[in-house]
C-alpha cells in the first residue's frame, strides 16, 4: 500500500536523511520525504501499514526532532 501524508520537515538535508532512515526500516518498500512539497510518501506492507507508519515517524523524529507527519 502506498500512502501520502503532509509532513513538516525543516531542511533539504534532513529530508534526505530521514528518507534514508525510513527506507531502511523493515517492511518499507519505498519512502519519500519531499522537502519542497512537504510531503511524505510511504509504501509498505499492507497488513502492517499502521505499525510501520508509526515506526517510520519515530525513526524520522530520532534523526530530525522537528519531523512530524499529519495523519
Amino acid at each position, binding site marked *: 500500500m502506498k500512502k501520502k501524508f503532509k509532513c*513538516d520537515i*525543516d*531542511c*533539504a*538535508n534532513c529530508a534526505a*536523511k530521514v528518507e534514508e532512515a525510513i527506507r531502511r526500516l523493515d517492511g518499507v518498500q519505498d519512502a*519519500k520525504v*519531499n522537502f*519542497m*512539497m*512537504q*510531503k511524505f510518501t510511504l509504501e509498505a506492507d499492507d497488513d502492517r501499514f499502521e505499525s510501520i507508519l508509526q515506526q517510520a515517524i519515530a525513526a524520522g523524529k*530520532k*534523526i*530530525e*526532532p522537528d519531523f512530524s507527519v499529519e495523519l
Partner: protein
Amino acid sequence: MDQKQARQLRKILIAAAVFLLLIVPDTLQTFPFAGKTGRFAPALYLIPYLLCGLPVIRKALLGIRNRQVFDESFLMMLATFGAVVTGEYSEAVAVMLFYQVGEWFQDYAVGRSRRSISGLLELVPESASIERADGSVELADPDDVAVGDVLVIKPGERVPVDGVVLTGESMLNTAALTGESVPRHVREGEQILSGCINGEGLLRIRAEKAFEDSTVSRILELVETASEKKSKTETFITRFARVYTPAVVLAAVLLALIPSLVTGDWGTWVYRACEFLVISCPCALVISVPLAFFGGIGAASAAGVLVKGSNYLELLARLDTVVSDKTGTLTEGSFRVSEVCPAEGISRTELLRKAALAEGLSTHPIAVSIRERLNEELPDTALNMKLVTDVDDIPGQGLAATVEGRMVCVGNDRLMQAQGVECPAVTDEAATVCRVAENGVYLGTILIRDRVKPGARQVLAELREAGVRRIVMLTGDSRSVGEAVGRELGVDEVCAQLLPQDKVARVEALLAGLAEGGRLAFLGDGINDAPVLTRADVGVAMGSMGSDAAIEAADVVIMDDDLKKLPAVIRIARRTVRIARQNIAFALTVKLAILALSALGLAGMWTAVFADVGVAVLCILNSMRLLRRRNGAKADRI
C-alpha cells in the same frame, strides 16, 4: 509566516536584544565585569547563547547519537564552543545568533516559494455534489466519486473530476490548468477537466474518471515529484558538499594543531580553525541549486507548462535542435478553404454551391470544408439534395454528379484533363486543389489547406532567439505540401512523407548529428508520437491536457495548444540554469576567499558567519527572482 516561524523569530529577537544589552556596554567598557575579561562574562553571554542556540545544540547531540555527525548543527556547536574556549564569548553568541537568523530566513524563503507554487496548484476541489438516482444531491469527498456518477457543478465551483457535460452550458475558467485567462465555453456532450472553475451556468456532468486519475491529481503528482528528478547540477553540488565539508573540517583541525605546535600560540589558531568550521557548512551550496530549479518549475507551471523534472529544465536550456511535428502542432490540423477563385462571370457563392451540391453530404475533409465555407459566405444555406442525381465517384480524381440536370465535375487536374477542361495554374503548392467544371466548362478553383497556426512563424523566430540553431519539421504529408508549409514557417529542414516509425529513425539520425553538448527536443501533439517523445532528449507534448498517453510519454507538457509557450519555457529554463550557476559560483568564490583570509587571520568570525548564512541568504534571494518573475512571466505568455 507560520506559527513556528513566528515563535522562532520571537526567540531570535529576544536573544538579539539581550545580546545587544551585553555587547554595547562591553564595547564601551562601562561595566568591566561583564566584558571579555569580566568574571561574569561567561554566565551573562550564556543567556542569549542558549536562548537561540539550544535547538542547535540539541540537534547536534542527536546527530552524534545517530552517528550522523557532520551536519551544520554540529559544526556550529563546535565553532561556538571553540570561540568560548578562546575567550571570545560575544563572538560565540554572534555566530549562533547569525546562524539562527540565516536559518530563519532560509526557512521563510523556502516556505514562501513553496506557497507561491502550491498557490498555482490550489486546484484541488474540496467536495463534489453527487446526484443520486432519486434526484437528491449529496455532498461527498471527491475521492468517493465513482466513474459514471452524475455530478452537479454550481456556478463558481471547481470541477472535481474529469467528465462529460450532460446538461447545461457555461464558461469554464481553465487558468489554473493552462495559464490561459480566456474562459472556455462548454456545452452538452463536451469533455471538461477537473480543476477548472465553473462560470455562470449550472452544469450536470457524468464522471469519466475517478479523482485520483483525474487531471488535477495527475498534475499535482507530476509537479510534486518533479523536484525529485534531480538536475545534474544538483547531483554535482550534493556530491561536492559531501567532500567539501569533511575537507574543510580536516583543514580546520590541521590549522588548529600544526601552527599552534610550531608557534605555541594556541588561541589564535584555534580561533581561526573555528572560522573554518563556520565556513565549512554546505547549506548555501546545497539549498541554492534545488531552490532555483524548484522556482523554475514553479514559474513554468504558472505559465501552463508542466516540466516533469529539474533535469529537463537543464536540457531545455541547452537546446540546439527542435524537431516538430507538422499537422496539429505547427498547423491547425483541420482543413479549411483557403481561397475561392471563380472563373470569369461566375460568383463565388455559385461556385461553392455547385461544388457543395456535387460533393453531397460526404464527411470527406474536402466536402466538409467546402460546406463550411459556403455556410460562412451564405449563412443558413440548406443544401437541397433533391437537385442532385447520379453521383459518380472517380477514384484518385474526384467525382462527377448531375446537379440540376447538368454534369458537375469536382476534382483534381487529372479529372479536368480527362474531361478536356482547361484550367489556370495554381501558385499555392501547400494547398489541395479542387477544380470545378460544369458541362465541360471551367467554373473555378477552390483551394483547401491546413492553415499554419497564427503566430507559428513568430514562435520559430523566438526559438532561434532563445538559442535554437536548427528547426526541423517532420510530416507524413507529400513533399510539395511539406516544403511549402516549411517555407511559410521558415524552418531549416523538412522531412516529408514519413510514416510514424520513420519519425523515430529520423529523430535518432538528428540526435546522432548533434553538436557536442547540444540537446534535441521533439514537439508533438502527443497523438501517435509517444515513441518519438520518449526518444528525444526532451519530449514536449502540447494541447494534451487530459490525454494520459501524452502526459505519460512527454517530459514537458504544454497544457493548451499555444506554441508560444515553448520559447517561454526555454527562456525560463535558461534563467533557471543561469541562476543556479550564479549561486554555485558566488557561494564557492566567497567561501574559498574567506577561507583563505581566515587562514591568514585577515577575517574575523563575523566574516565567516557571512560566508555561511549570508551567502545562503543571498543565494536564496537570487533563486527567488525566478518566482518573482512569475508575475513578469505574463510577458512570456503574451
